[in-house]
């Protein structure tokens, strides 16, 4: 079980959080102008990397805030945590 450093609350047990999938997938501003393929790319395509992955997490049993996490999925090491809207750290 991880310990996650919520940017709003500090270190908490993983059981207080919910994982929300890949980060930095912005909802298209004008969905109606996209082709089926482009929309499908947004809707369905997600990475599942063994290694460094950018993810969304939600402190659901705490402040309920969403934030981003960089995690190495091969050993669960959390490399960085940053707020929504902030730029991802450069590797």
């Amino acid at each position, binding site marked *: *079980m*991880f*310990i996650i450093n919520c940017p709003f609350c500090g270190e908490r047990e993983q059981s207080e959080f*919910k994982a*929300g999938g890949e980060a930095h997938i*912005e*909802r*298209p501003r*004008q*969905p*109606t102008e*996209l082709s*089926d393929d482009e*929309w*499908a790319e947004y*809707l369905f395509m997600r990475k599942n990397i063994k290694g460094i992955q950018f993810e*969304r997490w*939600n402190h*659901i049993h705490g402040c*309920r*805030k*969403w934030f981003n996490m960089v995690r190495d999925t091969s*050993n*669960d090491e959390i490399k960085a945590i940053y707020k*929504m*809207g902030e730029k991802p750290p450069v590797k």
Partner: protein
Amino acid sequence: MSKNLRVKTSKFIDETYRVSFKFNGTKYFGYKGDTLASALLANDIHLVGRSFKYHRPRGIMTSGSEEPNAIVQLHNNSDRTEPNVRATEVEIYEGLEASSQNCWPSVNFDIGGINNLLSPLLPAGFYYKTFMWPASFWEKYEYFIRKSAGLGKSPTTPDPDIYEHEYIHCDVLIVGAGISGIMAAKTAAKNGLKTLLVDEKPNLGGSTVYQNSEHFKINNQNSGSWLEKEINEIKKIDNLDIRIRTSVAAFHGYNFLLARENLTDHLPIEKRKNKTRQKLLKIRAKKVITATGSLERPLIFDNNDRPGILLSSAIKRYADLFGVACGEKNIFLTNNDSAYETAISLIQKGIKVEAIVDNREEIESKLLYEVEKNNIKVFKGFTIVNTNGYKKINKVSLMKLSKDGQKVIGSKINLSCDCLGVSGGWTPAVHLFTQSGGKLKFREEDQVFIPNKYSSEQISIGACNGDLTLEDIIENTPKYLKEFLNVKKTDYDNVEVFSSENKSKRNIWLLPSDKILGKTKSFVDYQNDATAKDIKLALREGFRSIEHVKRYTTTGMGTDQGKLGNMHALGIISETAGTKMGEHGTTTFRPPYTPLTFGTIVGRNVGEYFDVFRRTPMHEWHQKNKAEFENVGQWKRAWYYPKNNENMFEAVQRESKAARESAGILDASTLGKIDIQGTDASEFLNRVYTNAWSKLAVGKCRYGLMLNEDGMVYDDGVTTRLGENHYIMTTTTGGAANVLGKLEDYLQTEWPELDVYLTSVTDHFATISVCGPNSKKIISNVIPDLDLSDENFPHMSFKNTKIGKINCRIMRISFTGEHSYEINIQANYANSVWEKCMEIGKDFNITPYGTETMHLLRAEKGFIIVGQDTDATMTPIDLQMDWIVSKKKYDFIGKRSLYRSDTIKDDRKQLVGLLTDNPNEILEEGAQIVADVNKSPIEMLGHVTSSYYSPNLKKSIALGVVRGGKNMMGKKLIIPMENKTINVTVADPVFLDKENKRLNA
């Protein structure tokens, strides 16, 4: 009368305190401090169980948690009975009752023993190969296989004991209180770190504490006495928490560990009352020091499983710690120095050692010289090729090993004995280390896996790190501790150590025999009866991966998880396959290290606390009025209210009729309620619902449908505009939490520019729904001041009002199609308002109805229930709800998906009404719908989603989803059931009052 093999007073045993216990119904005596195993051995009992597959007689083999054979049932046929308990770990107490497992009628005469004679017919994979064909027979085989499988019997009555969970946060956790663990604990604690030391045994000190030999000295004292002083010292340290009888079950990432602490299992039953039996410790440690020691390896030779064959280290522990001789004529088989240590211990206590059979040819060892000084014959370069004695060993046969160790040569020598100690060297206990994600490396010189790469702030020290001798431990441990704990010195920096042990070893994974392998029974996994022959067979049949061989042969799959034999299995595989040891890796060591009871896992979360439920403010009223309840999400909802022995069908028919004929009342408090405020609230609703919200006037209500981005229906409910920038949204009961989460997600991540605030108010407001033609009369009496005329208070509108002094919100909305009101009221006043409605409604036969009637009434009107009529593959178009999807809005969640190539197909499953040809036939929900039963294979068109008998229409009605159903109006379809087929006609899903006349009646 059995013999007494207690040979010497031990300071670890209280011989003034005699304890009686029963084993297989016979009464025996032991002393306080004994384990069940040591007490049985003192009574000369070796045979304690039968093996799993061949039902071979098996005896005590070890002295610890690695025991594969001596597993017993405690307190059979009582509420405290426990199966698969290791006799080597059970501390005896007055009144203990233990019995053998896996044997019938008794351990001495076991019918299943016939499997031993049939064993040539029962090779690895026997069950897979034999019972797979014909496939249809499996059900019949399974019954018998299951009956003969399994070890102990699980309890059948509730567990009377109390269990708890405890959270511990510490700076340093040390697992294992052997010599290196003690050194680590003292060093950490004396440096001011909050330290926790745990050990699975009832006493501290591991195997060093009973070491009483001139051959192992620390600072010129016997290593045992030296360690005892250290133990006494650490017991006085305040910031050191010591937990004995505590076995670490799991080592997870981020230094999160689970351990089981046994608090009462060693006490007589009558002294356990009202005490916590076991605790599950949830430990979060900044640093972890694993000092779990090592396990002695057995050796693999023909008939190496007989009762009376023990690990050499176990014999030493029984002698040194418990003062018990495992036999009166002992022989040892070894490939290293350890057996000599044991032999010397036995000689000291006057226990006879007949001979030592050593695989090694040339041995330079002080221990060997001491043994030979005592005139004990040492057979160098020999091995044992067979043993005799059915229920206890009585003879061994030895032969000389060839130079390469692959064959035996010369003639056989037979020696008689009553106990054989084996030592195949030591395996570091790396189980917890690998559980944590650590990577192992293979050390060629003594053929062991040792920790290589750590995955968190942790180290392994002592024997589990490959320091297998006293010298290595004393020399290396202080160095590791200083670096890991970041301290300058330890108390052990200048400790002098003297050890006579020689590290040499001759490792032969499968000892050769004069017989061909097929004729031998050389057990690798004792509990599961997997032999060397089985492993070789698996390899011949093409298995290569250790994980596959494990599953095929069941090696390492018993309750002991193959703690003894797994290394040999790996060795035999690599030898046979001609690969290098280490290349195959090991099998995965999974938690728990030793079995856990369910009680410990669930702790206090039992009975009513197992799955807590939510109740509405009117819950007690429902109970008093004999409601049956159903679970909806976490809620308990009134399901129906049976009267005068009505069954569910009868109650629902009566409730449904009453609601349409006069008045019904429903507790709808469980609906999710989200308070939405902010200057962008209307815009926000526009984006999350499919229909338009900007023009909804203050004081009006509107039904909304919420989709996922994939266009599928997610939730629905009525939202009311309370003010210019203030709405209250209702959601489905089960969807409330997820809807709030989804809305928050969009607000925080996609649309942070919107000025919108969400608050869940589900628990703050109770909802009472009164419906039916007389509902208006009732409400006019409940709230006399409110003008209920259609002009002032039309359908789909809301009023702020008061009932007496209590503020409430009242909406005129309807889920039944009847004229209906929903009163939303602060939860703590709700019951009184409900009772008031009931009182006033008496004259109108107001009838409380539950969720089942609610479902029936809405089905008559063709209203969907999200999750019952939809299943995450239904778009609003599929539901024939095109009217709710705004064409004008530029965007809303899911809009783009509604015209993907897949969602615009005509032959999607679409919601339709279904009418049975026979109006009294009620369909089964979930039943398949087909058009042609003669087609092969039959094409499934869809299924029934809702089905009821409507008392108001006096016929059966149903909703269902059917492929292309929209264009099938009036078409005949078939519902094939087990014994019949039912003919149905596709119909409009709205069965009653298509013109909505009743809403304003």
